[in-house]
């Protein structure tokens, strides 16, 4: 019996020692790991995530672990619930509207940037934002096939009878591009004109999809002649599909701009490493990866030279703004009313 008790104590002791030793190892690994919350398209094999991870890990002792998020609002809500237990060190994919609408649900750290980073001029106030760092951007416009017979060079041209039910748009409540279009209309036209235009546009719309991808799928499926998308979309088809039959339309009205930001929640665990990662994302190598994989434009100068993106027109763009929540709510409510009463 005594032997048995000794045996049990020894086994138990060994297991306990292993557990604590293993626990220390896990802690050491965790100390060197940063958790980066990003969208599936960023993390996917074809996205910039895997290459950025590899390059960052080569240059630093820290390991990157991506955590996929499907919706920014929900991800931030979860970080808020978890509070100190949250593992999020970096959050990617925050756009101008998220900054106003959801980012205030949690506290963020100010990010110290490496000196010498020279942002492209178009970014305006986004470049000097202390809490959120821009890492890619692109003007947005309508994308069409070159075979489109209707000539479109302004918002007004989109109301042509031939384009009735032929324009794929996004729902501004659920889709950032959808909200970009709404903001574009309100920025380009005075209040009453904008409302009148939206009413007319609701007759032209083929659909208001819940996401950019759904609307682009409709366009690719020939359900619509035009889709509101990024001006870089035709570059994707040119590079990946070797198809040069798509074009982005330049309008007389300056185009809205979508900017994606990175932020560090106050509850981060490896905060300095997180800051290193964000600064790494602003390096020319990382910017090139983001441009080529995310099909968005780089935020620093000279990166797109000698690439397919260099051939892109330089579009006249609207200044980037962080809209007030009340303004966005007012625009969205107006759109909801129009859609309920006038549109599909």
């Amino acid at each position, binding site marked *: 019996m005594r032997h048995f008790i000794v045996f049990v104590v020894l086994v138990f002791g060994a297991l306990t020692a292993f557990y604590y030793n293993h626990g220390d190892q896990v802690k050491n690994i965790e100390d060197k790991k940063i958790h980066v919350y990003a969208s*599936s*398209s960023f993390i*996917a*094999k*074809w996205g910039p995530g895997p290459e950025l991870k590899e390059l960052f890990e080569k240059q630093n002792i820290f390991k990157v672990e991506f*955590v*996929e*998020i*499907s*919706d920014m*609002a*929900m991800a931030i*809500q*979860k970080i808020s*619930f978890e509070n100190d237990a949250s*593992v999020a060190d970096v959050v990617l994919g925050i756009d101008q509207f998220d900054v106003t609408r959801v980012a205030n649900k949690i506290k963020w750290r100010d990010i110290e940037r490496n000196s010498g980073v020279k942002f492209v001029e178009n970014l305006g106030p986004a470049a000097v934002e202390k809490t959120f760092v821009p890492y890619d951007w692109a003007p947005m416009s309508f994308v069409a096939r070159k075979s489109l017979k209707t000539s479109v060079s302004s918002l007004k041209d989109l109301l042509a009878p031939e384009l009735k*039910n*032929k324009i794929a748009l996004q729902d501004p*409540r*659920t889709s950032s591009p959808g909200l970009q279009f709404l903001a574009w209309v309100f920025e380009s036209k005075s209040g009453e004109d904008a409302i009148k235009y939206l009413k007319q546009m609701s007759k032209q719309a*083929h*659909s*208001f*999809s*819940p*996401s950019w*991808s*759904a609307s*682009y*799928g*409709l366009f*690719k*499926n*020939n*359900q619509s002649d035009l889709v509101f998308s990024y001006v870089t*979309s035709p570059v*994707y*088809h040119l590079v*990946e599909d070797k198809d040069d039959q798509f074009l982005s339309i330049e309008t007389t009205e300056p185009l809205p701009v979508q900017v994606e930001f990175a932020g560090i929640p106050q509850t981060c665990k490896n905060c300095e490493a997180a800051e290193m990662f964000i600064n790494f994302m602003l390096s020319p190598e990382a910017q090139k990866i983001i441009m080529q994989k995310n099909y968005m434009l780089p935020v620093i100068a000279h990166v797109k030279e000698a690439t397919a993106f260099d051939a892109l027109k330089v579009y006249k763009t609207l200044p980037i703004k962080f809209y007030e929540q009340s303004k966005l709510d007012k625009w969205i409510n107006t759109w*909801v009313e129009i*859609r*309920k009463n006038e*549109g*599909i």
Partner: protein
Amino acid sequence: MKEFKVSHLLRYSLLLFFLIPYAIFLFYYKFSIDIDLSELLWALKNTLTQSTLTALIVTALSIPLSQGLILLPERLQTIVKRLLIVPQILPALYSILIAFSVLNPFPMGTMGIVFLFVLIDLGFATLMTYSVTTEKLGNMSVIGEVYSLGRLNFFKKIYFPLLKQDLIVNFFIIFIFCLSSFSIPLIVGGGRGTNLEVLIYEKIFVDQNWSAAFSLCAFQAMAIFFLSFFLLKNKQKDSEPFVAGNYLKSYVGLGVIIGYLGLYLGGYFIGLYKSFFYISFASMYVWDLYDAAIFTGKALAVYLTVNFIILVLWLLDYLNNKKFNLATNLISASTVLVGFTLYLAFPVTREYDLIKMTLAMSILFFPSLFKLFLQKPIEDLRQQILVAEVYGLSKPQIIIEIIFRQISKQMLLWVSFLIVWFISEYAVLKSLGVQTQTLGLVTEGFLSSYRLPLAYLMSFFILIYWVGALAVVSLILRVAYVAYKKLTI
């Protein structure tokens, strides 16, 4: 006394398992009833319009279609039956793409939603009507012919009086399918197509008003619960050998079946054919696909095991109480609510993926699939179970030797739906925050980028995977049964 307590514990534990999402919500949020009545009535009106119209059209069409099916020789009939179920098992997004490739421009709004619902549910409804026709009409059609009743009189005096109750059940099954549908009203509905499930989604995502979302979820769940509890009851009737008389054969129905399958499968295969030109792109993702297939396989094994355990517990509960657990009526829980409550409750790391997936999918799919495929066949065995109990057979013996043995075909159908819904699912997995790639998530990745053709190829791969998984599961069940027999003998 002890047995009484254990049986009650089992009963309430099973019920509570399916109420987990609601409990999590109440843990995180202070609940207050928050319903905007005008908004609710508006969404309810849309929901009822879409669901009633679809259920009416589908149930009505399923009658001639089931008679078209009866015309076919047995082997061909088996193939056509399998094909008819395809629209129901393919993810809704494929049906949307197929409908878009068939109808250009597609009628967005209520008409578009009803068209898609009909496209998806018609095959399944046909099989249900075929099933009750062959079960309940016996040789009535032949007798009608002998008495020269005439087709119209046969339908008026025999067909509808005998099948009325079953057709009403079929109507409500389709009605409930449509009632809780999410992706179709969201994508093709437009402003006037918003149904209850889309309103719940909007409350969570757009307004972040969880109280309102929960109130709507509770309202929807209760509505479906009562529908299921009071209306989805099958009248029991001993089966008689079915003889297909001429009154039950319809060439028009057969023509519609051919047209329907041609439209759906033709649309699908055209999309698939075009995607094969992109197969070289797909080769870039072979290893990702391999990893996803392996993980999906592991997750599927866990999921099926858990569902099998729930089924056994469910049957033990049935044998204890002589009626099915109330949770059998918790069909069509809100996918948005289930997904996001579990997302909030569990850490977003890979280690928890399996638990989250199994829990969510079991809560969402088990009650509805049980009710659809297993409840009635088990209820039909009531007499045999009673006799077995009188002879002193143990509960495990009754479950294995009487229930499983006699409902093996229905169980295979049940398992096949569990498998295909699990492996092709991505919307729930996205809302759960699952970090490991599954076949469904890989498909979603292609769909949400510019890579639509690859998503089509994935759908084909999923179909092959489904057939393979079903074959493996069927083999395992057979081997397990033989082993059980050897051990018990």
